[in-house]
């Protein structure tokens, strides 16, 4: 699995993502600046890390979604390539239309920086195969706009087609519709989620709860 990690101005979790990828994939990810117009040849997986791209101006992820590299990312996804968006990366790919819905200001208005528990809704995807179905794991979250929303018809379709990847299983602190923490594209190759599995991939970080995500991808 060859990964390319996108870098937008204001992104700050790319090092965490590099570490997680290096450890599980056993090879270095490419780092791709947002002004590039093409992904490196042989890219299997595009990762959009967390942070505050373009200072969250206008809306979280709105500016980054218009960056030159995003045209290549859309083409990659259309060809069936893998895409992973975490936190701001999730916001960017919803703004870019790769996943439905949007992330609103947290219902309680506060920035949430704490651990949450996530439930694995399905384990027959390239992102979740190393977990048991229904498994719960700890994941740090750090966001002000993680309140997932979509119209009722879209939410029903996501549920009906099994495209909810992760749900908040302890408390739904940000007010997300139906406790949704992460969703998949219909071909199950694009995943977006708010919490940060990449921040728990080594005992030195206090746990390895998030490592199955990267191990699953490595095995795909």
């Amino acid at each position, binding site marked *: 699995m060859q990964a390319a990690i996108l870098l937008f101005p204001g992104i700050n979790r790319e090092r965490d993502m590099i570490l997680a990828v290096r450890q599980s994939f056993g090879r270095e990810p490419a780092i791709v600046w947002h002004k590039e117009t093409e992904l490196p040849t042989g890219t299997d997986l595009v990762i959009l890390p967390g942070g505050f791209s373009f200072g969250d101006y206008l809306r979280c992820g*709105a500016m980054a979604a*218009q960056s030159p590299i995003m045209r290549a990312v859309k083409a990659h996804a259309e060809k069936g390539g893998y895409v992973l968006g975490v936190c701001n990366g999730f916001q960017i790919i919803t703004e870019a239309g790769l996943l439905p819905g*949007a992330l*609103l200001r947290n*219902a*309680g*208005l506060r920035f949430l920086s704490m651990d949450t528990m996530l439930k694995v809704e399905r384990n027959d995807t390239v992102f979740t195969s190393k977990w048991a179905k229904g498994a719960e794991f700890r994941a740090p979250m750090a966001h002000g706009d993680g309140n997932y929303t979509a*119209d009722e018809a879209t939410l029903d379709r996501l549920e009906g087609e099994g495209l909810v990847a992760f749900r908040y299983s302890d408390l739904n602190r940000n007010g997300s519709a139906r406790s949704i923490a992460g969703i998949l594209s219909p071909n199950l190759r694009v995943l977006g989620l708010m919490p940060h599995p990449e921040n728990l991939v080594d005992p030195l970080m206090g746990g390895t709860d998030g490592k199955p995500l990267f191990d699953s991808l490595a095995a795909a």
Partner: protein
Amino acid sequence: MKAIVTVMLKTGVLDPQGKAIGHALNNLGFAQVGEVRMGKIIELELTETDTAKAKAEAEEMARKLLANTVIESFKVEIAA
């Protein structure tokens, strides 16, 4: 020609900032305030001199970037 784009969260979309402002106004003694909705105004200086064309241009910009039509609605007004 100036275009004024007003972007608001769609009816039915939770507006926690509007709610917080409403609570604060109530706490200040403005008991007459009911629901509060918050949005943003974006002013665009356009080179176009035809009002209808300027409006169409601004609307396209709103659809592509200024508003996220999944959660927001927008209104374009042209000021002379």
